[in-house]
């Protein structure tokens, strides 16, 4: 059985893209941290909500999946740069691999990330899909 507290602790960030911003230097951390790498002890961190909009910086198609992702393969994984500045590792959904491009605008959706087998917990969180034209 996979760890329960470890993934419960991250829910806020996984469900709602909530990170932290250092009020002293402005650096944003997502996932959130308790310690600003720039200001260290002098840093002050407050919660910050991301809009869920961003663009694809790079992407790949995973064809040899890790345990738990076999049914989904092949699937698109990408580095998405959120509009607020940080980058996340995430799956791109609702699109075929050929349609993904560097620079593509994307928006966050709420999906199942993985589950701890048939009897274990289901872990939900963010993924991204192509954004509708604005």
């Amino acid at each position, binding site marked *: 059985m996979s760890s329960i507290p470890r993934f419960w602790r991250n829910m806020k960030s996984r469900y709602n893209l909530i990170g932290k911003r250092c009020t002293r230097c402005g650096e944003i951390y997502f996932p959130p941290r308790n310690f600003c790498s720039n200001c260290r002890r002098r840093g002050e961190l407050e919660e910050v909500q991301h809009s869920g909009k961003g663009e694809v910086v790079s992407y790949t198609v995973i064809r040899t999946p*890790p345990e738990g992702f076999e049914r989904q393969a092949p699937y698109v*994984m990408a*580095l998405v740069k959120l509009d607020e500045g940080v980058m996340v*590792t995430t799956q791109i959904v609702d699109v075929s691999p050929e349609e993904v491009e560097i620079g593509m605008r994307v928006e966050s959706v709420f999906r199942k990330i*993985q589950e701890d087998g048939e009897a274990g917990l289901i872990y939900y969180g963010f993924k991204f899909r192509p954004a509708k034209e604005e």
Partner: protein
Amino acid sequence: MKRVAVIGVGLTKFGELWETSFSQLFVEAGAMAINDAGIDGSDIDALYVGNMSGGRFVDQEHISCLIADHAGLTPIPATRVEAACASGGLAIRQGVMSILSGFHDVVVVGGVEKMTDVVTEKTTQTLATASDSEWEAFMGMTFPGLYALIARRHMHEYGTTREQLAMVSVKNHENAMHNPYAQFHSKITVEDVLRSPLVADPLRLLDCSPITDGAACVVLASEEKAREFVDNPVYITGSGQASSTIALHDRKKITVTDATVNAAKEAYARAKREPRDIQVAEVHDAFTIGEILAIEGLGFVEIGKGGKATEEGETAIGGRIPVNTSGGLKAKGHPVGATGVAQVVEIVLQLRGEAGKRQVDADVGLTHNVGGSGGTAVVHILEK
């Protein structure tokens, strides 16, 4: 910095070694190194072992104790060093530092990994622990996936081509033909690479280093003590190590391994050397793109020009700067914890003139070992 001598080297064959256990691997490599050094067990002051995950591969932690015990070296101090795929390189640096500090005169530094005792899925899961467990691996990312992201971006930013990546693999397989310890002795072509199954687009099977069992070992000694044992030691004249973000998504620029750049900077400074002084190098080609990143980050070629340099044969045996004469991680094999030490073994053999058919003419060599997608890098410079 003051020089540290390498007075003995040893390694096992790299491959799927079904008959050999974890501890047997190290003992075999260690015995060979001690023999090569012409020392006695009682001459050894300390032991450093690089190993990524004895715990997940063979359910064994407390590796340092296990190795010291099975090598018959107790009660000397034994220390296990871990930084994913850079474990071996870090162990070398720890050994170097222990001698330069004056704590020890003769130390054995080895690296070992036994990866085939578990099924492939478990192996890939374990390798993923080198990435960010909760925010990369958890999301469905794999190790090849991370390097694939870098490869695609590198192709986008610098025009590196699929064929150029393939040429890294072709070259390294060619080199390994002359390395009796290598896992693969098979020549391949660019077409072979491009036809091999996709693992994580654009990387294919033949872009990726294999799963390997193996161990490598060196005996280090202070310059003064070395003279008691050998006439012409090879010296470690520079050492650099740097850390960076664990997750690729937190790197400032994913196409430049800043840990490599920083580690190299320190190594060159300590050795009072520049990139153009290096005449042979063993770099971290866990994936073909890794070698491109390495030769750029180490300063052998301009950033972005790594693909072209490979295509033009600059890194082949006979080229301007031969890279991975051993066959690299791709063709020699990549027993994770052992790799960093095996790289030192190769450069020592090259500088001694004992590299057989893959020999190049070199007085100054370099080893480059990376952990994860670039969270750790360690560089050593060696000279005759």
